[in-house]
């Protein structure tokens, strides 16, 4: 794709005199305006006559204040990076287990149904067993209560 674009671009004819005009314009910019700089580094070097180090103009007025990364921003960036790495590491660690655990053991719904019913029946069986014992205990308790009531009635007479 890039090759095609380059080839196409190369085929486009350059207007006559464009190069000279551009050179002229750049020379004009260099003569009239201050040099561009990034951060505290001058674009031309410290000894260049047109270079202006960031902070002050030659006449002493501040050109602009450099907006470097403050402490807060550095902490924020560090915290964000740590967070992203932490979360990524956590999920990478868990991925294998989660994948294994989240997979359905049975691919056939009928086999899954049989296993599910077996499990539910086992639960119901054990619940019934417990409830059965509870019913027995209840019956014994009721019988004891009835006998006690009868005895109390006899005593009252």
């Amino acid at each position: 794709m890039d090759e095609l674009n380059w080839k196409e671009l190369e085929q486009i004819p350059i207007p006559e005199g464009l190069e000279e005009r551009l050179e002229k314009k750049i020379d004009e910019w260099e003569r009239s305006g201050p040099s561009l700089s990034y951060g505290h580094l001058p674009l031309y070097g410290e000894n260049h006559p047109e270079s202006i180090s960031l902070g002050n103009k030659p006449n002493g007025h501040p050109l602009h204040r450099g907006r470097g990364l403050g402490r807060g921003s550095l902490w924020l960036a560090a915290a964000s990076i740590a967070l992203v790495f932490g979360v990524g590491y956590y999920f990478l660690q868990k991925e294998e287990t989660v994948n294994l655990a989240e997979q359905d053991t049975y691919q056939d719904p009928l086999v899954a149904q049989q296993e599910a019913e077996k499990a539910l029946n086992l639960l119901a069986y054990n619940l019934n067993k417990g409830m059965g014992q509870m019913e027995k205990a209840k019956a014994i308790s009721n019988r004891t209560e009835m006998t006690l009531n009868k005895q109390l009635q006899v005593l009252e007479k």
Partner: protein
Amino acid sequence: MKTIVKIFLCVAMLVASLQANAQVKEFEKYADTKNVTYVFISKFMLRMAGASSAPSVPGVNTKSIMNKLNGIQIISSENKNAIARLKTDAQNMVKQGKYELLMQVDEDDQKVRIYHIESKRQSVVVMMADEGEEFTIIVFSGTFTMEDVMKMTQ
């Protein structure tokens, strides 16, 4: 500082949303534990099966609860060391998860404990069956109530 708090909240919500699924997370680790058999039946499979199911055991109605289940996890082992580890882990999980003991059936050859927990998100019933040489944990999770569970036995 506010931005950091916002980022943390977003990540916490993301993690929480990824965590929320059909399975009871505490028991998922047995999926790749040596000498332990782990079976998981998903909600999807249960729904597919539920559509054509008929009661296979007389007096037990599993169909009503089957539709409310989100998943069943079956963890079992016949290995002594694995059983010992499973028992300890399961007891710790039950304590930490604040499960309530629903029923305890002790017989000569089998000891069964049934625990349950109900929350807004889902209900869980855990059945532990200790048969000496074999230890099984069955975890039922879903949107059922205890009434639904008891109805199954009527």
